[in-house]
């Protein structure tokens, strides 16, 4: 597989530092997507290092990286449909913020997963709302006034008038996703779980794609169906190997389940959490240092073997 060794021919390829400085501003609405797979952790860490404030974070599964951004004081509002540390336990800082406003309150907009999916669908498709068959009878609309209803202009199955809940679009100032690879222009390829990443990018004003590697144009072009986000929707390409840790990148490295379990303990104690941030985020200049600090033995434990897709023939005219 050909890979580009340098990025000097590529206007969109920049460092994480440059991308966050250019596209993530105080007070912005920032979407970070990746459903367990390809969580853009390294981007969250750089946002912490640059000391962003008053962010509205939009993320379906608000997990470790969100807890860390909360603890670093970057976030004043959270829009989410699952606020937990996967199945490994709690998010300590998030619970303190919501349960006790400690050390500061957190505005929280609660959705279900499909409610969030539909907000991205509406945002990416420039729709004023998106209908879904959820929320009938739920208490969620009583705490989230953006869950509203529309009457269908068509009769229901029994001829009766039918009403359905709708959600409004979300249009982040910037969406950040992590992906396995892109070309220098930002044509982004993801395999394994692809989640809501494409819609989150299309819904946003700007988009940063963080990748395990930038590959030659020919690699991407050998399989155009693999391109989940085309270049016209991407503003910055950041090369950041292992940037999804403790999450995983299918075919590159496995999930660090031990760290997920550890986070429940780390985050339970505010002092310990802050010490962790001091050591692992503020104490590293960038994600490359974080990766080095973990050490090659550590990464060997997350290494994966080979299971290659069988090629398909796109054909060429004879």
């Amino acid at each position, binding site marked *: 597989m050909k890979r580009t060794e340098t990025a000097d021919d590529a206007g969109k390829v920049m460092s994480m530092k440059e991308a966050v400085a250019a596209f993530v501003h105080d007070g912005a609405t920032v979407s970070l997507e990746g459903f367990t797979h390809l969580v853009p952790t390294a981007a969250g860490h750089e946002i912490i290092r640059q000391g962003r404030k008053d962010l509205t974070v939009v993320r379906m599964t608000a997990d470790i990286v969100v807890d860390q951004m909360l603890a670093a004081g970057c976030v004043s509002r959270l829009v989410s*449909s699952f606020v937990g540390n996967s199945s490994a336990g709690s998010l300590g800082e998030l619970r303190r913020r919501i349960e006790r406003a400690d050390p500061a309150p957190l505005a929280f907009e609660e959705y279900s*997963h499909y409610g969030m999916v539909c907000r991205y669908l509406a945002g990416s498709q420039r729709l004023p709302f998106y209908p879904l068959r959820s929320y009938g009878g739920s208490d*969620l609309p009583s705490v989230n006034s953006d869950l509203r209803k529309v009457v269908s202009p068509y009769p229901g199955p029994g001829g009766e008038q039918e009403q359905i809940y709708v959600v409004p679009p979300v249009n982040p100032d910037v969406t950040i996703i992590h992906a396995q690879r892109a070309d220098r222009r930002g044509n982004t390829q993801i395999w394994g779980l692809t989640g809501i990443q494409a819609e989150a990018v299309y819904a946003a004003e700007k988009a940063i794609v963080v990748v395990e590697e930038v590959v030659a144009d020919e690699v991407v072009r050998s399989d155009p169906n693999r391109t989940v986000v085309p270049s016209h929707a991407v503003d910055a390409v950041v090369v950041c190997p292992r940037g999804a840790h403790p999450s995983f990148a299918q075919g590159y490295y496995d999930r660090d389940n031990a760290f997920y379990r550890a986070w429940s303990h780390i985050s339970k104690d505010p002092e310990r959490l802050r010490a962790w941030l001091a050591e692992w985020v503020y104490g590293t200049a960038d994600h490359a240092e974080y990766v080095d600090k973990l050490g090659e033995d550590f990464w060997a434990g997350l290494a994966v073997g080979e299971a290659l897709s069988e090629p398909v023939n796109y054909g060429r005219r004879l």
Partner: protein
Amino acid sequence: MTTATAPETVTSSELLSVVASRELAARRTVFAGIGLPTLATELAHLTVAPDIEVVYESGVCGAHPSHLPETIADAVLISGAEAVLSMPALFGCVLQGGHIDVGFLGAAQIDRWGNLNTSVIGDWESPAVRLPGSGGAVEVMANSHEVFVVMRRHNPRSFTGTLDFCTTPGPDRALAEGIRPLGAGVTRVITELGILARVGVGSELKLIAVHPGVTVNQVRDATGWELKVSDEVGTVPPPTAAELRLLREDVDPGRVYLR
């Protein structure tokens, strides 16, 4: 027939998995999380439901994992799977489209109609405990043909007369708001004490069976509302040696979930 194993040798996880697996007889598509639902569906696949397919919230259909998955998004669920779907396809076409026979859900609180709370203990605005929230539970309840709930602990705080917050409404609450749900809502609740059942709209959860050695009054006391009890409460047949052997030797030999 194999002989029954003495109950004291069976762990709570084994008991719940075996009982849940039997309820999956002849089911085709199951929407399940990791843990007890995994054990139940894998065992059902080897026993009463050979054609069962688990659809995971992460988008995986027809997984053939090399190892027991640790999360619904585990890399081993993806490699070798038959299909991996995007979130809009998974939630829109598969779930809301009505392709799921049985959805598995858990909850911090359940009420007599099978409505669920996974959001907060206490008041939503300033809760005593902030729980993870819905995830896809609202959608699983609204769109599956029926829902099974497996609850390790059966006590009045979890089986409550009044939910602190209704995250995930069953069809009765939806209909009261004039919204017609697809399925029956919760039809089975499987706990350490026995099995509650509910047939659909307008019906309350009713105790239909207890585990050996459990009395009806024990279940009543452990339930936070005045529990309806079937005229013919049965005794849940304990796990057979064959079921336990499959579970222990084929499904989870590393005892990942059988903790």
